[in-house]
């Protein structure tokens, strides 16, 4: 068996290489040869192919993502921007918060439990790598039709995986989404978000500098996980011998990750590392090339020293393995002993695998022979960039012309009432407690708000009551009708949710889930959505701090709805002023904030009652969103409201029912003059919220809204045991609860 060393590669320039099997294009392979001035070795080919993949290089999306930086609003809070493992935001009192949302869609379809579990594991390590203690997770999810048999396989597995991993790490799950639509059949979306907290001085970066500093790999042993692809290489290179089966599925060990977190935080506390990187996609290839290229450039690694779970792994496979629960740290020699002591304390295996050099190459050795000699930047950052063609699909006009306003509407009060029940019982609007009750939301003892509140909120300082809130939103139906507006609506909704719970929105992370970039229609959706999001972030003053792109979510020619999931992070100075959604106090007045227009395109009503998707999504008015947020935040700070709930899918009636059920109190409302009852209840106009105002505060509150120019309409009062729309219908809380809470358990048990 010949090892494909650098020397060997130089001597055998014409050797056939399986670049196509590894997913590289002819010109990409040529480019690698050009960079190196020779053919790559097998190990180099492995590194380039994985790092230049869509997943790691963002080659189709990069040109569009640039806007997030170019249009980033001035924001003093931004401490670390796009480009690191996660962005970092200043939240005051010396604290910094980091958060990011990522996808693990494809693995979760193949193996729901492990796919989802390792998705949580991956994003938690990104947050940890910034120097932060992870304090909460969230999980925006999309599944196929609720009654499809495969959903019964995928959903329980995904939920158990997220819970199994997150619960075992001790991270409260404070929110997420669960949306069903046939477009996600075969392409479920499993996005995971993690929030972490640190002091400013604890921010760490993925950077290898200082010649002589040690490269330490620590955490789990390396196995053959997630390297289905490279086995091609192994078999090409070592025809006679070599392992055959390599699992494409990664199995997570949350216990190991919990040890990794505590161990790493203790290492940070003693300031023992100069740079750190988690191992995620592309494993060591990614960690070493990124660390080296972000530092001075030189690094030397002895690959034989990597602790293995499977002794038969080839060097290529070790470089590409995606074994979970590993980290890579750059440590000054004088700190190495202490670093090892801490790892030993936590039963974490740690090994010096190399050192930073004063050269400019990443050099990797195997049994004393050099198998990699590359400029690390070319691996990590100089992957190809595509300007993929995009074009507005020809069906877009017809879709938008198919206006939901023309759908038959309820003709009688009785029908209106029935459709309310249909709406709140539809899987997308139904209570998700079957899912969220499998997640620990109390652990760490800092949870202020969690699902089903508008945002998840955690306390970050016990003395001062400083807290942060996060909401994630995304509506693929809106985005399908108009991706530009759909992305903005996702942002607007998350922003509104954060404000509704009393926190000031500060920054954004996003996960862009789309179909194949090779389809110009999908690429157009992507271009429009990124442009829409970047523009809206600029207007709202909330910069994108990082995120993730997931492409190829499609079956055959059919792509999922474009699904930009947007997370907004906010800060609240005093968590005792947080605003819950519950209408809990009899006699408090219910106000509707904002304007209601007839906007039914993409609405929950059109789906729940007519299985229809067509027309235009609701209009976006970002200035109005900002004003609404200001009012919600001031009102909470000054104690003028004691409940608030944003209006989004399902419109006013959905929000009203949720607030009533949550508080265990009914409400009597009247349809405002000039509004059609149906439109009043079901329209999904953006920029609206419901609030409960104690009578004693009414004047102060309406004065404030009036002075700032926000329409505030008194529509009723918290009262009794029914939700009553006067002159139309009354539904008892019991009946509503049964409809709202019965759906998901019935589907899944």
């Amino acid at each position, binding site marked *: 068996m010949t090892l494909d060393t650098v020397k060997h590669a130089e001597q055998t320039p014409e050797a056939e290489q399986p670049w196509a099997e590894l997913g590289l294009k002819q010109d990409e392979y040529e480019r690698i040869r050009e960079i190196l001035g020779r053919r790559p070795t097998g190990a180099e080919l492995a590194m380039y192919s994985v790092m230049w993949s869509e997943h790691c290089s963002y080659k189709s999306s990069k040109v569009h993502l640039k806007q997030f930086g170019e249009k980033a609003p001035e924001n003093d809070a931004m401490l670390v921007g796009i480009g690191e493992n996660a962005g970092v935001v200043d939240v005051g009192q010396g604290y910094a918060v980091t958060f990011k949302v990522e996808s693990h869609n494809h693995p979760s379809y*193949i*193996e729901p439990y*492990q796919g989802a579990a390792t998705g949580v594991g991956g994003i938690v390590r990104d947050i940890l790598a910034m120097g932060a203690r992870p304090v909460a997770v969230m999980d925006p999810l999309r599944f196929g039709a609720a009654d499809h048999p495969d959903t019964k396989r995928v959903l329980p597995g995904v939920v158990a995986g997220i819970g199994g991993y997150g619960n075992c790490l001790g991270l409260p799950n404070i929110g997420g989404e669960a949306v069903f639509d046939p477009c996600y059949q075969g392409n479920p979306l499993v996005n995971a978000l993690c929030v972490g907290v640190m002091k400013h001085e604890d921010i760490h970066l993925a950077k290898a500098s200082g010649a002589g500093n040690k490269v330490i790999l620590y955490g*789990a042993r390396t*196995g*053959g*996980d997630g390297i289905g692809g490279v086995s091609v290489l192994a078999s090409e290179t070592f025809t006679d011998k070599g392992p055959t*089966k*390599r*699992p494409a*599925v*990664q*199995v997570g*060990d949350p*216990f*190991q990750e919990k040890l990794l977190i505590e161990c790493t935080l203790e290492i940070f506390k003693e300031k023992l590392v100069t740079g750190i990187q988690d191992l995620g996609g592309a494993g060591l290839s990614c960690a070493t090339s990124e660390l080296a290229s972000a530092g001075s450039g030189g690094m030397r690694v002895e690959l034989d020293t990597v602790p293995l*779970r*499977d002794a038969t792994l080839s060097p290529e496979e070790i470089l590409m393995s995606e*074994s*979970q629960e590993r980290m890579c740290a750059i440590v000054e020699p004088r700190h190495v002993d202490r670093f090892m002591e801490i790892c030993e304390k936590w*039963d974490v295996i740690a090994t010096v695998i190399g050192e930073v050099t004063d050269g400019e190459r990443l050099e990797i050795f195997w049994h004393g022979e050099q198998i990699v000699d590359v400029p690390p930047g070319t691996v990590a950052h100089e992957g190809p960039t595509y300007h993929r063609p995009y074009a507005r699909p020809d069906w877009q006009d017809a879709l938008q012309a198919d206006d939901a306003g023309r759908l038959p509407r309820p003709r009688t009060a009785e029908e209106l009432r029935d459709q309310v029940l249909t709406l709140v019982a539809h899987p997308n609007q139904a209570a998700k407690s079957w899912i969220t009750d499998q997640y620990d939301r109390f652990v760490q003892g800092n949870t202020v708000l969690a699902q089903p509140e508008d945002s998840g909120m955690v306390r970050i300082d016990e003395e001062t009551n400083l807290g942060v809130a996060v909401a994630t939103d995304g509506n693929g139906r809106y985005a399908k009708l108009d991706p530009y507006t759909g992305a903005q609506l996702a942002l607007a909704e998350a922003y509104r949710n954060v404000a509704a719970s009393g926190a000031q929105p500060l920054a954004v992370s996003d996960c862009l889930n789309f179909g194949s970039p090779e389809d110009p229609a999908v690429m157009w959706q992507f271009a429009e959505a990124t442009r829409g999001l970047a523009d809206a972030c600029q207007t709202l003053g909330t910069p994108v701090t990082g995120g993730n792109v997931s492409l190829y979510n499609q079956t055959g020619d059919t792509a999922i709805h474009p699904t930009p999931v947007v997370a907004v992070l906010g800060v609240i100075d005093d968590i005792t002023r947080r605003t819950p959604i519950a209408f809990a106090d009899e006699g408090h007045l219910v106000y509707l904030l904002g304007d209601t227009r007839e906007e039914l395109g993409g609405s929950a009503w059109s789906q729940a009652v007519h299985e229809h998707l067509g027309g235009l999504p609701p209009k976006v008015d970002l200035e109005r969103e900002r004003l609404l947020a200001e009012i919600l935040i001031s009102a909470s700070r000054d104690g003028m409201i004691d409940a608030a709930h944003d209006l989004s899918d399902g419109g006013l009636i959905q929000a009203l029912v949720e607030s009533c059920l949550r508080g265990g109190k009914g409400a009597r409302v009247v349809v405002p003059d000039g509004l059609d009852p149906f439109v009043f209840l079901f329209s999904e106009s953006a920029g609206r919220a419901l609030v409960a105002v104690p009578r004693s505060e009414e004047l102060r509150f309406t004065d404030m809204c009036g002075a700032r120019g926000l329409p505030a309409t008194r529509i009723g009062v918290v009262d009794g045991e029914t939700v009553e729309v006067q002159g139309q219908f009354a539904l008892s809380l019991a009946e509503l609860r049964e409809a709202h809470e019965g759906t998901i358990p019935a589907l899944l048990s």
Partner: protein
Amino acid sequence: MARVVVDVMLKPEILDPQGQAVQRALPRLGFEGIADVRQGKRFELEVEGPVDEAALARIHEMAETFLANTVIEDFTVRVDEPAGAGS
């Protein structure tokens, strides 16, 4: 009634965190000389009627499609010896 046993184990190349945790604990408990531990599942099925070829084939199919997740697990099916080798 006959008993059929289906043993389901993680494939050898798949990480088995449970088995590892058990193995690492053994020396601390004073048990040396165990080089590796893998933990799997054992299903005991009480089968009505004769356990013939056809019945075993059905159980095999059941194991493949349901009891084991063949993405990550292997399984074996066997008829239980009447009396086990006692604990």
